[in-house]
């Protein structure tokens, strides 16, 4: 449109640019506070101790004389208190005993075949 005085548009545009760059830097600094959140959450979410403990108790139960009771307890307790499904079985080949262990807590699944030393 002829006659419009648009000298100020450059100033306005430069003003916008400066403010947007400041705004962008503020965003970056703000997001830096939450770094480390997903690292800590993934550590807590992986059931390292649960798997280690259950594996230890299952292997121990196969060397006890009264192991069947213990194994029934493991199945019931892990489902009721830890929300995880545990399946295990044993077989022998030669002089070695093998135990197959399956663990699944809905997020993480773990499978192992343990061989006696």
């Amino acid at each position: 449109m002829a006659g419009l005085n648009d000298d100020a548009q450059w100033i306005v545009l430069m003003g916008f640019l400066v403010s947007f760059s400041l705004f962008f830097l503020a965003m970056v600094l703000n997001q830096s506070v939450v770094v480390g959140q997903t690292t800590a959450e993934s550590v807590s979410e992986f059931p390292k101790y649960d798997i280690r403990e259950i594996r230890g108790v299952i292997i121990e139960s196969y060397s006890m004389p009264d192991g069947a009771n213990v194994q029934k307890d493991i199945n019931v307790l892990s489902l009721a208190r830890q929300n995880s499904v545990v399946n295990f079985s044993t077989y022998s080949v030669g002089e070695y005993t093998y135990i197959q262990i399956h663990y699944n807590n809905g997020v993480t699944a773990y499978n192992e075949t343990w061989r006696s030393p």
Partner: protein
Amino acid sequence: MVDTRGQLYTIEGVAAALIMLASAYLVVNATSIYTPGDTHISDMQLEVLGNDALVMMNTATNATSESPLQAIVETNNGNAFGQMYNNIVNNRTGQDQDHVQFMANVSYVRPDNTVNSTTLLNMSRPLSGGEHAVHVSEWVIVKAGDPENPFPRNRTELVEVYLWRD
């Protein structure tokens, strides 16, 4: 005659207002405050500590004896558990002690309907619900009876502890 001169002013004002509102909203929305607890780093540290303490209590000091946790669960000795766990969890390399509170349960399987139930072991302070607690657990193989059937047999029990900081 209606003058259209003011419409330009109005539209310009409205547009400027929209721009300012939009940017102000985005800026304010982005700068939500994250407390250190939202990152769950302290939760992770507390979980590691609680699990380590339970593992230590469930390790016998030599090959022929049973672990302290097994003895505590078999005799249902809540006071001994409270003292020992308190010492282990709050022990630091420096002189001052930490202030971690806890509450412990034991779960076992009942013989008839195979539904389990819990008995309270001990707590250092009641868990009221305002605390942000983490949950750790430990499997223990014991030879014990239960209230329904007191004859001791080999069984597995689950020791569960809630930990929080004051």
